[in-house]
């Protein structure tokens, strides 16, 4: 059968003679009634559905329809009058109902936006909004005060630190100068002593000198106490490990 087949299921036959639709009345289960057989044959020639407008613009009229003169179904004037009356009444009622419902919906919408209750609602909401804004402002104020205090503390701390740093630097500078002066003084003293005394050494330092007299004693002393320089120290300067003397 055709590529796209759709069987139209039309409801009860309409009595209006104006309708000239070509909707086919076919039983739902595809039963083989006489009408269906003719149309199945037609399907083979022109594909697609059994709906109105099956043929395209360029398709010619079928050969079986050559001498056909289409006559509309006969109209009974009495029946026509009665039907027309009934239809006008029916459509009037339906249209009235439809408009009634539409108006109901619109009225409801209008009431929601511009009604007696709506105004009160908007007023109440505005009031609530104002109170909430006031609460928010109070909250902001509280936070602002906390922030100001904190900023103040921070500036004070920074100021203190700056002053302390300045003092420290000054102190360090003074200490450095003093140390340097001391060293200079010591060097000067040494130099003067050397120049004045010539080859004569200092009294303190003379004690430690090795002379011909001390030589033997000193040698024995050195042999008895061997000095071990193989030791490790930690960051504090304390001795950590000593290797054995060899």
């Amino acid at each position: 059968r055709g590529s796209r087949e759709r069987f139209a299921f039309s409801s009860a036959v309409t009595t209006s003679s104006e309708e000239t639709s070509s909707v086919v009345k076919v039983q739902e289960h595809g039963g083989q009634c006489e009408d269906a057989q003719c149309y199945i044959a037609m399907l083979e020639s022109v594909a697609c559905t059994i709906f109105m407008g099956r043929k395209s613009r360029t398709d010619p009229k079928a050969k079986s329809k050559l001498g056909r003169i289409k006559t509309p179904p006969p109209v009974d004037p009495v029946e026509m009058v009665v039907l027309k009356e009934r239809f006008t009444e029916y459509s009037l009622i339906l249209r009235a109902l439809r408009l009634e419902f539409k108006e109901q919906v619109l009225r409801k919408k209008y009431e929601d936006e511009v009604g007696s209750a709506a105004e009160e609602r908007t007023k109440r909401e505005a009031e609530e909004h104002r109170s909430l804004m006031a609460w928010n402002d109070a909250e902001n104020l509280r936070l602002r005060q906390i922030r100001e205090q904190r900023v103040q503390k921070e500036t004070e701390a920074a100021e203190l630190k700056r002053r302390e740093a300045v003092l420290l630097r000054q102190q360090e500078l003074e200490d450095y100068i003093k140390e340097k002066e001391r060293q200079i003084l010591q060097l000067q003293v040494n130099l003067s002593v050397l120049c004045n005394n010539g080859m004569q050494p200092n009294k303190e330092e003379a004690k430690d000198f090795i002379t011909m007299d001390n030589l033997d004693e000193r040698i024995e002393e050195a042999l008895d106490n061997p000095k071990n320089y193989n030791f490790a120290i930690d960051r504090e300067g304390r001795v950590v490990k000593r290797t054995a003397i060899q």
Partner: protein
Amino acid sequence: MPMKGRFPIRRTLEYLQKGEVVFKKSVKIMTVNYNTHGDLSEGARKFVFFNIPQIQYKNPWVQIMMFKNTTPSPFLRFYLDDGEQVLVDVEGKHHKEITHHVKKILGKPDHVLEAEALAKMELSNPANFGHKKYFLRECMSEVEGQVPHPGLVPLPKEMTGKYRAKLAATSDD
């Protein structure tokens, strides 16, 4: 490849639908100014990271913009319908506190949200039948326990029309 990103739970529907803040109709734009470093902006950063997706999901028509490292302290700013601007200071606050604060001043209250949900439920009655797009079922045969569609499962002989007609004819005879 299950989930992408640092906290991929933020991208799940379940998490987004749990968002509490639904803005009133008058709120149009929301702006968040915060800093990427610093202890005071921590709450604001967490708020942006966790709660902004929820808020945007619940309010798709509100424009939300983020500005980083423009001011020393973090804050939120809301621009309303009538030109009013609402400033919310969030310095040093926890992100949950911020959400509660925002919900209180500019969010729809709980009872209004519930009423809206109820009204929405009333629109779609699950007992109605119709097109799959709008209703649950199209035909009674789709319900469990009912007679299935004869196109899928053939009816028992006794229920078919032609058998009944035949029976009636033979019984008349």
